[in-house]
C-alpha cells in the first residue's frame, strides 16, 4: 500500500511555487508513522490529507507516473527562458500534477476534511489526478 499526502489548503502568497490545495507533497509507504501534527485533519487546522491507495506500492505509483507523464510525483514544473547566456529554466509551479479535490464525491471530501484520511484503490483515485500542464487526467 502507498499513502499519497496532499496539501489541504491554498497558500495565497501569490508566488509561483506556493502550495495549492490538492498538490501532492509526498508518497510514503503504508507503514509510515506520521506525527500528530501531520495527522491533524483540515477541520482542526491541519495542512494535509492522506489518501491510502490499497493496491499499489510507492514504487508502482512512481512508475505509473513516470510511464504515463515522464515525471516524478514531487517534481517542480519549469518553463524555459532564453534571456541569459545559458537557457534558464524558470520554476512556474510547485508540482506538475494535482488531485482534483473539487471533483471528488462530497462524501469523500467531507471525510478528508473531518478525518484527514481516505482509503481507496488506484483505479478509483487515478482519474482524479490531473496533469497541470496538459490538464489531462491520469
Amino acid at each position, binding site marked *: 500500500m502507498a499513502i499519497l*499526502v496532499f*496539501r489541504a489548503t491554498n*497558500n495565497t*502568497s501569490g*508566488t*509561483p*511555487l*506556493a*502550495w495549492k490545495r490538492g498538490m501532492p*507533497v*509526498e508518497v*510514503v509507504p503504508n507503514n*509510515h*508513522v*506520521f*506525527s500528530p*501534527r*501531520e495527522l491533524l485533519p483540515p477541520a482542526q487546522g491541519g*495542512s*494535509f490529507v492522506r489518501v491510502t491507495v490499497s493496491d499499489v506500492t510507492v514504487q508502482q505509483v512512481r512508475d505509473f507516473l513516470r510511464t504515463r507523464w515522464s515525471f*516524478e*510525483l*514531487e*517534481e*517542480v514544473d*519549469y518553463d524555459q527562458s532564453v*534571456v*541569459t*547566456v*545559458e*537557457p*534558464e*529554466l*524558470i*520554476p512556474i509551479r*510547485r508540482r506538475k500534477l494535482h488531485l482534483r479535490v473539487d471533483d471528488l464525491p462530497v462524501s469523500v471530501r467531507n471525510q478528508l476534511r473531518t478525518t484527514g484520511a481516505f482509503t481507496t484503490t488506484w483505479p478509483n483515485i487515478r482519474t482524479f489526478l490531473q496533469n497541470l500542464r496538459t490538464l489531462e487526467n491520469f
Partner: protein
Amino acid sequence: MATTTIKSAGGDYTTWALWEADTDNDLTGAGEVIGEIYDVNATAGFTMAGATNSDATNFRHLTVNSAHRHAGVWDTGKANMQVSLTNLIFLLSEPFARASYIQAKNTDATAGGGVFRLDANSTQLAQCIGWQTAPDTGTSASGAYLNSAGTGQILRNCVFYSNRHGVHSNHNSASSIIIDNCVIAGSTSHGIFTNLNAALTIRNVYSGGNTGDDYNEGSDVGWSTWTATTCMCADSITETGLTSGVAFDTSNFTNVTAGSVDIHLVTGSALIDAGTDLSGTFTIDINGATRSGTWDVGPDEFVAAGGADNRIFWPANLDGVGSGGPFPGHRVQ
C-alpha cells in the same frame, strides 16, 4: 526563534517536505523558523518557497541536528538527500531562506540536472555538500545554480564536486553574489562560471581539478567584474586576489578521488593559513568547529595532529542517540 524537529519518530514532522509544506506562512515577526533534521533522509526533490514577508530577521532555515550531520565529507550514515532527477534537486526559492549542513547528491545515472538552486534574494547555503553521479552537459546541472531571479545569494563553507559547473551564477548584471571558504572541484566543465558582468565576491575559495576553467567569467578565463580575496586555483591564471597552480591532489586535500572526495586539509597543504579572517561575518568551518588563528582557504580549518583537543564531549545517550563521545562536527586531525 521557533524550532521544529524532523524525525522518523517522536518529532514534529517525519519528512523534510512535510516540514516545508506546513511552515510556508506569513513570517512577519516569526524570527528564524528552523526545521531541524534528525534521522530522516530525503529521497525526493525539496523546495523551500511560498512563505511571505521573509527578511533578514524572519526567515526559514533547514538544518541538521548536530548528532546527525556530516563532518565535512559525504556520509550516507548521516542525514542526506539522494535523488535522481534531470532537474536540480534542492531549491531555495524564498527570499532569505537558508539551508545548512545539507549533503545532497543527484544520483541520475546519465543526465543529473544539478543539486542546489538558489532562486531568491539573499538565500544562503552553509556547510553543504553537493555532488552528482553523472551531471548533464546542459543548462543548470551545477553543484549550486544561482538563478538570475535573485541577487545576494551566499555560499559559505560548502563543497561542490563532480558537477557540470561547481557554481553557476546565471546573472548578467549586478548580482552581489558572495562565495566564502568553498571548495569547487572535479567539475566536468568550469569550477565557478558566471555570465559576463556578474558581480561576484569570492573569498578564501579554492577551485581546482575541473575539466574546464577553474574560474570562468562568461568565456573569459579569470574575471573583470569579480572581486577576489585570498582565493586559489589549480589553473595558471593571473588575477588580483588569486594564487594559481595549487593542485587538487593529496598534497593539499585528504582524498581527491571522485566519489570519495574529502576536502579536509593535510599537513603541508598550501591552503593552510593562506586565507583572510572573515570572523566579522562568520566564525565556523564545515565541521562546525570555530576557526582560530590565521584562516585557511576552503571549508576546513586545519587542526594539526597533536594539536589542542578542544572537542566537546557529551555523556552517553544525552540526546538519545548513540553512546556518547566527541560532539559531532568537531574533528581533530
